[in-house]
């Protein structure tokens, strides 16, 4: 649905009429996603898009039932959730919408401004399903909209919302926070974050070649699915333990060989990569040695006598990594800030890392995942429980 200043009032009226909260994890909603999942996973066309397949896999009944187990109490939605999705991550809107529906809300979803084929495919699937008699009532709970960048429209949609999911970075958040909202409107803001990888050297050095291959593929999946541009893509690699250079070099050589097969580079990416590396060097001169023996993965190695450098400001993209050796997990604190979102780890127990982060009073780190799972969507994101935040618990005393 395309919104402009002419149809805006009518649409708002329409939405307000159907803005009625309902139970979290309502059976009809679970069935709706089950149908979506089945269609995505059975259609040939969707196989071209790994992100679409991943969403299809995520919203299958079994997975949603697992999430449901975390919410045994009866809860109800807040009303209308306005989703402001980033324009360059095609299917972020799908997960956002799913959380809105699972938490019992009516949803106003602003689709990415760039036209992606997988977005079109999914919208068609949603339309097809909601045209069926069984799911027709969901038409009043899902409003997929687009509009040209307009503060006026954003303002009017904001004042009518009971909750807002603001993805799309610091600038977007700043702008939307300046708009008036209902006093009880809940905002979940997903600001600019960065992520890092932790590798346990002791464990890695004992792997055989097949096991190493799995680690390599998982690392590539985390870093290169989004050209290292996603908040959850690692921009730094921390080696923990007494490392031997030879093993490190073997890891990167494995990565480079695999990347070469993928051949995902182009002139625009290369140009931007050079720009960002030059920028890093000028903004932090004499702190790093650059290892660019292979252009695919350029490594900025922190010089030995330099400590306590916050890697937050470093630009990484298209295969540029800050690489730092540390003795133990605790030392990570010197290099990261509250903007650190995810640790993707290999060779550790995630819970053990979590304990250290709490004990050592880290300000960042909201997720610790096994390597290869950086983009695994979860009902807890950036430290928020999304379902609880978008719904109401009714207390009885």
């Amino acid at each position: 649905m395309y919104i402009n200043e002419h149809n805006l009032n009518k649409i708002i009226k329409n939405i307000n009429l159907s803005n009625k909260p309902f139970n979290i994890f309502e059976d009809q909603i679970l069935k709706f996603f089950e149908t979506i999942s089945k269609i995505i996973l059975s259609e040939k066309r969707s196989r071209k898009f790994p992100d679409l397949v991943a969403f299809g896999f995520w919203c299958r009944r079994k997975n949603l039932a697992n999430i449901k187990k975390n919410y045994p109490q009866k809860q109800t939605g807040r009303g209308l959730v306005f989703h402001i999705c980033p324009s360059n991550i095609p299917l972020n809107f799908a997960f956002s919408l799913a959380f809105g529906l699972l938490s019992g809300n009516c949803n106003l979803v602003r689709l990415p401004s760039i036209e992606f084929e997988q977005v079109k495919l999914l919208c068609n699937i949603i339309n097809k399903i909601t045209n069926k008699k069984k799911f027709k009532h969901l038409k009043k709970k899902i409003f997929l909209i687009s509009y040209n960048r307009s503060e006026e429209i954003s303002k009017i949609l904001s004042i009518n919302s009971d909750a807002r999911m603001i993805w799309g970075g610091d600038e977007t958040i700043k702008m939307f926070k300046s708009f008036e909202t209902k006093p009880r409107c809940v905002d979940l803001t997903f600001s600019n974050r960065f992520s890092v990888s932790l590798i346990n050297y002791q464990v890695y050095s004992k792997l055989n070649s097949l096991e190493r291959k799995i680690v390599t593929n998982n690392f590539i999946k985390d870093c290169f699915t989004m050209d290292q541009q996603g908040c959850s893509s690692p921009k730094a690699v921390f080696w923990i333990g007494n490392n031997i250079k030879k093993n490190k070099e073997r890891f990167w050589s494995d990565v480079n060989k695999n990347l070469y097969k993928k051949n995902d580079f182009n002139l625009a990416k290369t140009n931007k990569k050079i720009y960002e590396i030059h920028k890093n060097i000028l903004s932090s001169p004499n702190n790093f040695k650059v290892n660019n023996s292979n252009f695919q993965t350029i490594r900025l190695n922190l010089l030995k006598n330099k400590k306590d450098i916050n890697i937050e400001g470093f630009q990484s993209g298209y295969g540029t990594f800050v690489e730092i050796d540390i003795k133990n997990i605790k030392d990570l604190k010197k290099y990261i800030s509250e903007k650190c979102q995810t640790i993707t780890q290999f060779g550790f127990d995630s819970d053990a890392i979590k304990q250290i982060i709490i004990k050592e009073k880290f300000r960042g780190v909201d997720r610790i995942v096994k390597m290869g799972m950086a983009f695994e969507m979860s009902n807890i994101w950036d430290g928020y429980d999304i379902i609880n935040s978008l719904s109401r618990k009714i207390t009885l005393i």
Partner: protein
Amino acid sequence: MINYNKIFKEELYNLNSIEKEKFFFKHLSILNNYHYRNCSEFKSLADTFFKKKKIHTSDLPFFHIKMFKENVLKSIPKTIGTKTYKSSGTSSKLHSKINIDRKTSLLQSKCLTKIIQNIINKKKLKKLYIVDNQKTLIDNQFSARGAAINGFRHLANSYEFLLDENNNIKTKIIKKLKFEKDFMIFGFTSIIWEFFIKKLIKKNLVISKNNGFLFHGGGWKKLENISITRKKYNKYVNKFIGINKIYNYYGMIEQTGSIFIECEKSYFHPSIFSDINIRDKNLNICSLNETGIIQVSSLLPVSYPGHNILTEDMGRMINTDGCKCGRQGKFFEIIGRIPKTEIRGCSDVY
């Protein structure tokens, strides 16, 4: 330092690619070492990102062009006064900030003069007509447009602007122009189109066939959007301005003066003052005819480290020797801006 007096006595296009590489590597290395000693930013870049062993021009360290937009890079003591030039920056919010001292400014203007003289085959022409208004020169003498106008106006005994303050054609001068014999017209590619050719057509004014030259530069980006090709452009220049000696040039504000002239066979040529390399997605040198990122080098920038730059343009090396126009050495083609691919990421995008 480079012995500029000696180079200015040399022919511009007489070295074959092997001789040129030998000559250029020697001189660009001298300049490279100068900037290495005098610009700390250039030194840290050279030390961290580039290999130590340098045997070809293409081994020498370069800056990404955007570094000049985000930093003030100087290779002279901070106490020495400089002028800051700004690129016209139509497509980006940020301008290049180029620190030019007297010496560099003089070199640039001398080089531009030499390159244009080579084409007009004369020391000076009687008249230069500038397709712009005088206000541009006064308001923006440190802009790319102002800098180029400044360079060109030394090439004629007198000059006149063809547009008034409101960018309308000065019709009186046009009518006089018919009788002119020894002249050239200079302007930015898109301005000549927008404010001159289109207005001539509208006013139904046609300048009769003449012996003048037309020089234009600044890029095709705006014209590409309205699908004006080089061929079409030249056809209109010919028909409405009456000129068939049309020369397009390619150059960066960071390397004012050492421009690349498009020859009669429509290929661009470096002079002895400049060099070109085309790089692939792994930053290696492209093979002939392969599209890659344009890297430009110039012997002129002394007061700032703009001698070696990776641009955001794409081009193809046609060959290292043998252009039918007669100029020796490399010749190349420009394809345009590198298209902004779908840049992925979470931030800043609603």
